[in-house]
């Protein structure tokens, strides 16, 4: 299995662990990821709120570069994924748009390759046995809230991935590690990442509601597939606790970090000490619990 890999700006910076853990897991299951040469930013929501042509042209340049490699594209970041899929759909739906985009980027893009998010690949392209075969340190019983956010699953005609109200891909993948995903209602609620900087009071309230629902449903950890959601949920717990006099201390993981941990990749190797709310102690606790339970069984 080989894909063109588009890390995007976040995975080079605040989302470094997502990059490291994705690559570590890919290596374990023998998946090849070839980084798109000289990729550029996808424009995120700023571009499509400002200039619709720009919002298509920025991803199109990357898509075209990947097409040159003759590969489908694997995208970990949910926001980049959504921009790329929107571009693919726009140019496939209307030849004129494709011509216009090609003129802007000054390249020949044909929209022949497909774009998949990393979660889709792990849940639906990689056979489950290939993952379970690699699980050596199971995360037995970890009560995890799988958080998708908005862009991975919406709108479904664009993302062509899972169910927009109650997706199950992350649950499916994480169950393979022995974890126990919980049922909860906020898995596709928006975290407000697009104005976490410019309109922080609003974003904090949106994040608080997500954390509260995870807590009410008994989660001990949150898993995500998006570096922007991660930054919001992880880094801003402190600000939320200060503002609302709450007491949230969720470890927030990339789903790839959990996969990696279960496959015996060391948390350090994936940069997991870089999170704001510590995430390694929970892993150790889970492994300890498994050992104790194992001894009691004997």
């Amino acid at each position, binding site marked *: 299995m080989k894909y063109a890999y588009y890390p995007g*700006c976040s995975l*080079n*910076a*605040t989302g*470094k662990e997502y990059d490291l853990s994705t690559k570590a897991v890919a290596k374990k299951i023998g998946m090849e990821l070839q980084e798109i040469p*000289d*990729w*550029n*930013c996808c*424009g*995120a*929501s*700023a*571009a*499509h*709120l*400002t*200039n619709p*042509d*720009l919002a298509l*042209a*920025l991803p199109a*340049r990357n898509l075209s570069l990947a097409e040159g490699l003759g590969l489908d594209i694997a995208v970990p970041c949910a926001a980049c994924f959504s921009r790329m899929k929107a571009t693919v759909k726009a140019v496939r739906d209307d030849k004129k748009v494709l011509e*216009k985009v090609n*003129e*802007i*980027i*000054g390249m020949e893009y044909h929209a022949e390759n497909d774009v998949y998010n990393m979660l889709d690949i792990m849940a639906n392209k990689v056979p489950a046995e290939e993952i379970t075969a690699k699980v050596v340190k199971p995360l037995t019983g970890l009560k995890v809230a799988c958080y998708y956010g*908005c*862009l991975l699953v*919406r*709108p*479904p005609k664009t993302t062509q991935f899972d169910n*927009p*109200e109650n997706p199950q891909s992350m649950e499916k993948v994480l169950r393979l590690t022995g974890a126990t995903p919980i049922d909860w209602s906020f898995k*596709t*609620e*928006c975290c*407000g*990442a*697009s*104005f976490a*900087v*410019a*309109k*922080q009071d*609003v974003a904090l*309230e*949106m994040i608080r*509601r997500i954390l509260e629902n995870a807590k009410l449903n008994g989660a001990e950890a949150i898993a995500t597939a998006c570096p922007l959601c991660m930054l919001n949920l992880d*880094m801003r717990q402190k600000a939320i606790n200060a503002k609302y006099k709450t007491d949230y201390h969720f470890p927030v993981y990339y789903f790839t970090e959990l996969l990696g941990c279960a496959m015996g990749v060391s948390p350090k190797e994936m*940069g997991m*000490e*870089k999170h*704001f709310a510590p995430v390694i102690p929970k892993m150790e606790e889970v492994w300890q619990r498994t050992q104790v339970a194992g001894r009691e069984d004997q």
Partner: protein
Amino acid sequence: MRQITLGKEGVEKNIIQTLQEKSGVRLSDCYQCGKCSAGCPVAFAMDLKPRQLIRLLQLEQVDEVLKSKTPWLCATCQCCFVRCPNEIKIPNLMEAVRQEAKARHIIPEKDIDKFNNLFLKNVEQFGRSHETFLMGFYNLTTGHLFQDVGCAPKLYFNKKIRIRPHVVKNKSGVKRLFQKTIEKGAK
């Protein structure tokens, strides 16, 4: 009870026409069920709920809509669109209203506007988004000098934000792309 004049001519009609064309939304498709507002995660902060914004446009009350914070607060999360029984592309409509307001220099959420502009400047310059510059310039231009500064040492220490930006090698290519879209926009 508030009195409004229906069936206005001229400017209002034109704006409504533009909004519908730009967004691909037919305003008369909305039967005001309110599902969009019920699910909107930002509704609590909006001065007009999504349903109300559409209602005002149906009634050609363009001024109130252009002045509203709502389109600026919309996070484009697509929840409303996915749930709307009439598949009305509300996020596209929000986007169109925002662009229309901006063209008239009505910017009710200045910080959000500044952030987006800076973000794109960043990408135009470096081909990639550079978080240190983005945060720094944002804090300087808006006067929110210390926002998130508490988080910066940890981010920097963990090599998550850098002082030197990542730069795309083909910088002129990306700049050219920006230039081209601006030309297209002007046409």
